[in-house]
C-alpha cells in the first residue's frame, strides 16, 4: 500500500500543479473583476473630491441654476452650459429619433436578410467614424447651411449655432441608434408577426400594432443610449456650436455645452483658483447623467432578453 502511494507521487505532483494554476487563474480573474468595479468608484470619487472645494464657495443650487459665469470673480454658474447641453442634445434627438425609427422599421421589417446585413455593415462602419471628422464636415457644410437658413428667415447668425450643433450631433448618433434598434426588432420572434398577418393585418399594421408595441422598451433603451452618447459628445459639437457662455434664446444662437466647456478651458485651469474644481463638477454632472441613462438602458435591454428567451 505504502509503495503504491509513493509510485503515484509524480501524478499527484502534476495534479497539484494543475490545481495551483486553476487557483491562480481564479484569483487573478477575480482581481480584474474587482479592478473594473473599483475603477468606476475611483473615477466617481476622484471627481467628487475635486468638486467639494467649489461647494464651499458657491452653493449647490447656485452652481446648477445661476447663469453668471465669471471665474475671475469666483462666480461659477453652470446654468447656461447645462441648458446648452440639454438643448443641443434634445434638438439632435428630435431630428434623429423619427429618422432612426423609420430606417429601423424598414431595415427590420421590409427588407430581406441580405440587404439588411449589408446595410448594417455600412451603418456599423460609419458609426465608427471619429467625431472630429463629423465636426470638420459640420464646419464645412452645416455651418454655412445654417447661416443661409438664418438669412432666409431674417435672423443674423454666423451659422455657429445650436442648430448646427444639433444637426451634426443627429448625424452622429443616427447610425448608433439604428444599429441597436435593428437588433431589438430582430429579437422579436417571427411567429408574432405571422399571427398578425393571419388576422389580415397589412405589414404596416403589423408593425404599428404588434411589433412596435412589443419592442417599445427596447427601442426606448436604444434612444436612451443614443441620448447618453450625444450628451457627452465633445469634439464634433465644440467645433460647430459657437461656444458663447449665455443661455441661448433661439436655435440660431450660439451655445456652449458642458463637454465643450471642459475641453476649451483646460489649458488655463491652473491660473485661476477653483476653476479646476468647477470644471470637475461639470465632468461629474456629465458622468452621473450618462451613468443614469446607461443604467436604465442596461436593465431595459436585459429584461427584454429575458422575457423573449423564456
Amino acid at each position, binding site marked *: 500500500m505504502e509503495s503504491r502511494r509513493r509510485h503515484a507521487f509524480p501524478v499527484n505532483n502534476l495534479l497539484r500543479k*494543475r490545481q495551483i*494554476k*486553476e487557483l*491562480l*487563474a*481564479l484569483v487573478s*480573474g*477575480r482581481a*480584474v*473583476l474587482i*479592478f*473594473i*468595479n473599483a*475603477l*468606476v468608484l475611483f*473615477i466617481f470619487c*476622484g*471627481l467628487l473630491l475635486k468638486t467639494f472645494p467649489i461647494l464651499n464657495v458657491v452653493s449647490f443650487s447656485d452652481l446648477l441654476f445661476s447663469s453668471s459665469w465669471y471665474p475671475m470673480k469666483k462666480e461659477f454658474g453652470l446654468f447656461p452650459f447645462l441648458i446648452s447641453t440639454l438643448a443641443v442634445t434634445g434638438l439632435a434627438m428630435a431630428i434623429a429619433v*423619427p*429618422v432612426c425609427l*423609420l*430606417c429601423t*422599421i*424598414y*431595415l427590420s421589417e*421590409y427588407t430581406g436578410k441580405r440587404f439588411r446585413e449589408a446595410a448594417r455593415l455600412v451603418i*456599423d*462602419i*460609419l458609426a*465608427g467614424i*471619429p*467625431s*472630429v*471628422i463629423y465636426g*470638420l*464636415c459640420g*464646419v*464645412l*457644410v452645416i455651418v454655412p447651411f445654417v447661416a443661409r437658413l438664418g438669412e432666409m428667415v431674417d435672423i443674423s447668425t454666423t451659422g455657429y449655432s445650436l442648430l448646427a450643433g444639433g444637426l451634426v450631433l443627429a*448625424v452622429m448618433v*443616427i447610425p448608433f441608434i439604428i444599429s441597436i434598434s435593428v437588433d431589438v426588432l430582430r429579437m422579436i420572434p417571427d411567429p408574432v408577426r405571422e399571427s398578425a398577418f393571419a388576422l389580415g393585418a*397589412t405589414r*404596416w399594421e403589423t408593425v404599428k400594432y404588434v411589433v412596435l408595441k412589443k419592442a417599445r422598451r427596447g427601442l426606448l433603451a436604444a434612444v436612451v443610449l443614443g441620448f*447618453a452618447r450625444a*450628451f*457627452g459628445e*465633445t*469634439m464634433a459639437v465644440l*467645433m460647430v456650436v459657437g461656444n458663447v457662455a449665455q443661455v441661448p434664446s433661439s436655435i440660431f444662437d450660439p451655445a456652449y455645452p458642458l*463637454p465643450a466647456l*471642459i*475641453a476649451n478651458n*483646460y489649458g488655463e485651469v491652473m491660473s485661476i483658483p477653483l476653476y479646476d474644481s468647477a470644471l470637475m463638477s461639470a465632468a461629474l454632472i*456629465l*458622468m452621473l447623467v*450618462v*451613468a443614469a441613462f*446607461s*443604467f436604465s438602458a*442596461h436593465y431595459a435591454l436585459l429584461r427584454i432578453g429575458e422575457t423573449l428567451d423564456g
Partner: protein
Amino acid sequence: MNSRKLEETLFKIFMMASLFLVFLALAGIVLVVAMKGLSALNLSMIMETPKGGYYLGKEGGIANAIIGSLYLMTGATLLSLMISLPVALALQKEYPGKRFCDLTRLVLDILWGTPSIVYGAFGFVMMVYLGLRASLLGGIMVLTLLMIPIMSRAMDEAVRMVPFELKEMSYALGATRFETTIAVVLRQALPGICTGVILAIGRGIGDAASILFTAGYTDDIPTSLLDPVASLPLAVFFQAGTPVPEVQARAFASALILLLIVLVINIIARLLGWRFSKNIVR
C-alpha cells in the same frame, strides 16, 4: 380598405426617404473628406514632421501625429488587452458569483457609455496628483481606460457564445476550468475576441477629447514615455482651427488619413468575424 393601403404606401415612402437620407449624409461625409483631403494630400504630408512655419502654410507633414497615434494605440491596446481578456474569461458562468458578474456587466455598460471627456478630465486630475505632465504615458493610460469597456464587452459577448456542451466535453475529460478556458473557449471565441480588439482600436484611435489634456501635442516624435505626443485626431482639430486656408486644407488631408485608417480597421474587424466564424462550432 383603401386608406389602409394608402397608409402603408405613405409610410413606406417615408421609410425609404429617411434611409436614403441617412446613406446620403454618411456618403456625403466620406466624399467631402475624400475630395477636400486628396487635393492637399501628398507624400511629404505622410513622411515629414512639421517644419518651421508649418502652421502658416509652409512645408512639412504630419508624420509626428501618425507615429504618435501609432505609439499611443500600441501601448493602450496592449494594456487594455491585458485587462479585458481576463475580465471576459472571468465572467464565464462556471465561476461562482452570478450577482457579482451581473454587477460587473452593469459597470462595464456604464463605463462604456461614459463620455471620453470625462476620462480625459479624470486622467488629467490623476496626472496632476501624480506630478505627471502631458505625456505619452498619460495618453496611453487614459486611452486604456477608454478602451477597456469596449473591448471587454465585445469579448464577453464572444465568450458567452461558446456552446456549453463543448465545455462540458472538456470537463468530462477531467480538464480544469482554466485548461478548458485556454484550450476550448479561447480557441472558439478567438474571432470574436479579435473583432473586439480591433473595434476598440478603431474607437481609441479616433478619440480626441480624452487625450486633449493627457497626451498634449508636439511637433517632434516622442523619444520617451514622458514626452508629450501628437495624435491624428488632435492634428485634425488643431489644423482646422487655424485661419490659414492651406493649413485648413491639410486638416482635411489629416482627416482623410484618419478616416482611411478607421475604415480599414472596421472593415477588417467585420471580415474577420465572417471569415473565422466558418470554422467555429455553433
